[in-house]
């Protein structure tokens, strides 16, 4: 296995996001998503599901230990509806990426009528890049 890369993948059912919005409303939205994401997605469940899948796939690609917390708010995906979605890390997620030597993240998204999938490839610095 190429140790210069790691991969994260996540699937989210749109129904889960719709249930969260129905049951917990603004508290759910503000707990999980950044202001920029909330502005970009304006309550669209499909796009919020894509955003959440991207956050979880990023966490898996960053490979935190089972006891290490990575808040969803420290991963921002304000363009998950675009052709070239990007990921921005802050706080704990940013510190974890630095510790792992990760320099780039690439995100791919796919969806059906009921499910969204996200895959994130984390690329590390190589000796020649340093």
């Amino acid at each position, binding site marked *: 296995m190429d140790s210069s890369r790691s991969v994260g993948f996540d*699937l989210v059912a749109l129904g889960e*996001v719709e*249930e*969260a919005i129905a*049951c917990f409303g603004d508290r*759910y939205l503000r707990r999980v998503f950044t202001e920029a994401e909330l502005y970009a997605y304006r309550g669209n469940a499909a796009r919020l*599901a894509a955003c959440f899948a991207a956050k979880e796939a990023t966490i898996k690609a960053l490979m935190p230990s089972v006891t290490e917390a*990575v808040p969803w708010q420290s991963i921002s995906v304000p363009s998950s509806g675009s052709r070239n979605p990007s990921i921005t890390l802050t706080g704990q997620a940013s510190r974890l990426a630095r510790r792992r030597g990760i320099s780039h993240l690439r995100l791919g998204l796919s969806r059906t009528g009921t499910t969204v999938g996200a895959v994130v490839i984390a690329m590390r610095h190589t000796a020649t890049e340093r």
Partner: protein
Amino acid sequence: MTQPVRDEIRRVLSEHGRLPVAVSSLSDDADLFQAGMTSHASVNVMLGLEDAFDLEFPDRMLKRSVFESISSIAAALGELAPEQAA
């Protein structure tokens, strides 16, 4: 943690965990993610627990190990309850 607390955790898991198996069939130490709880369902469980126990999980507890079993959730609640009552 008392049995009523564990029963309430099971109620929240039944309501929000979207598990493909009956919560009553799981032991307190069963791995909830192995049992089929998704990462997003764990968010709904977290918010349901906050409502049920009138507390808030801090960022430092937003990790897989806290929500991986009924026992681990009970331990986290035990840590939070006196902390947030202080």
